């Protein structure tokens, strides 16, 4: 690579990084400003004196603790259910032969292309009739049984050679034993990918809670933050503080598990 192209390459990288990161920078910096300081002419790229107390005030000015608690609870339950039932079903699809299997899998795959927005109405009617709307169960139900988990795990299980399973079968291990003792340990990376993607999706889900969770004591962080924004629309700094707090846990989790996250996206992306 010539020196000029290299230089141009770096230039492009810098521009792209700024474009990606600037909103986040603005969010963090504004969260440390006073309200008057957020919008100024000329733009202040650094707070006069950082208002760290914003990060204490937000907990008393809003129901942040409850919102975060609800979100953590839902994210954990949904992720566990998705990983367990998804990998369990994927084993059936990948390693057990029975009539109707492939047709059923096609139905799973088919719905991956159907946007949730197009069946959210009948789904809502159904869950309301089951008296599940405005309960945590509604969010758990709509998030935990997606086709994505089955698809991602099946993809991985198919890469594990059948000979390994046959050896275990000859040793007298049951299919459930094989799933638990052989497949699960072998598929830790794929399980991690699925868990991370599900966790992030559930944490960030705005539409599900918007439709289903009417009672304020059930609200998740997304719903709570949104209400906070409309109620305290002039509290620019605190709004940004809340935004930082809603994004921060996910960024940390992403940074810790980045490898698995990226692998998961590449798998589902390329094969979908």
């Amino acid at each position, binding site marked *: 690579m010539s020196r000029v192209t290299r230089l141009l390459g770096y230039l492009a990288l810098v521009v792209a990084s700024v474009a990606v990161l600037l909103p986040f920078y603005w969010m963090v910096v504004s969260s440390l400003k006073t309200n008057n300081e957020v919008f100024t002419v000329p733009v202040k790229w650094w707070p006069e004196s950082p208002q760290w107390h914003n990060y204490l005030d937000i907990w008393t000015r809003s129901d942040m603790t409850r919102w975060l608690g609800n979100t953590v609870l839902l994210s954990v339950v949904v992720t566990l259910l998705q990983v367990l039932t998804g990998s369990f079903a994927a084993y059936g699809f990948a390693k057990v032969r029975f009539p109707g299997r492939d047709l*059923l899998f096609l139905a799973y795959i088919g719905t991956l292309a159907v946007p949730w*927005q*197009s069946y959210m109405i009948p789904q809502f009617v159904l869950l309301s009739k089951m008296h599940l709307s405005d309960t945590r169960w509604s969010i758990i139900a709509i998030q935990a049984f997606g086709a994505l988990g089955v698809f991602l795990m099946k993809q991985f299980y198919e890469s594990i050679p059948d000979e390994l399973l046959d050896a275990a079968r000859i040793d007298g291990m049951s299919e459930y034993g094989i799933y638990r003792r052989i497949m699960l340990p072998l598929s830790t990376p794929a399980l991690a990918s699925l868990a991370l993607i599900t966790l992030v999706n559930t944490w960030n889900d705005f539409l599900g809670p918007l439709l289903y969770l009417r009672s304020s004591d059930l609200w998740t962080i997304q719903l709570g933050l949104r209400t906070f924004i409309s109620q305290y629309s002039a509290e620019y700094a605190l709004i*940004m503080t809340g935004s930082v707090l809603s994004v921060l846990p996910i960024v940390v989790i992403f940074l810790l598990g980045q490898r698995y996250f990226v692998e998961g996206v590449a798998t589902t992306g390329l094969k979908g």
Partner: protein
Amino acid sequence: MTTTPAGRRTRNTLLGWSFLLPNLLGFALLTMVPVALLFYYAFTTWDIFGGAEWTGLDNARQLMHDAGFWAAVQNTLYYTVFHIPLTLVVSLGLALLLNKRLRAVAFFRTVAFFPYIASIVAVAQVWNMLFSPGYGPINAVLRAVGVDHPPGWTTSADWSMPAVILVGTWREMGYFMLIFLAGLQTVPGELYEAARVDGANAWQRLWAVTLPCLRPTTFFVVVMLTVNSFKILDLILVMTNGGPGQSTLVLAQYIYRKGFEENQFGYASAVSVVLFLLCFLVTVVQFVVNRRREA
């Protein structure tokens, strides 16, 4: 354990279903049944009082003359037509850039994903502030470089959609960049060598080797982008709520309005069927094209 073929078959069938069942029960009840119900509800008139009443094609007829519906279709297409090429070019460009041996590539690959994993409520709020017409940083910068009357962005009927498109692209480019990067790993290195031996410059190598080899990935990305554009909802709800006026009202939001704000479940289902069919059409095209390529 039975050893006859028929016995093994029964055993396997039971086994297979036992593995599927926990997920399948939830999946069937929450996805398959609603999708099936959709096509029944779409032909009914139904408000919160009383049940669904079969009215045949009334909803479809009403749709044809519903100005709000057509505005939503038009806006959805507006978003789609700009969002797809913009995101495609940006994410492919970034992927090509990251595929070079430059320092700090790993850093950028990480960072580019932040918009995609950051919650939409926070992201939309930040962008709304950045786009703020009077005192927002974007217009401040525009004024500084000599634009005397910078756009009103989300407060202007003409500029709200461009603002939403920009944020949509900003949010999704990292995701598709990653998919392009994965695709680039499948381009055989020998082809580049051969092209170089033939004296092809970087530009020619891009057009003659990289892009043709990437075609399946590009196709997949376009399909994904199309469906993503058709179903866009959360970004719109939190950024502009469809406004000002109807300038950013999209199809999925129209469903939301009719269904959850006006409680017209039947009519909302009819609009949903349109969204469903649009996405279904895209998938069928994808299926046919893939089939032809494999043949």
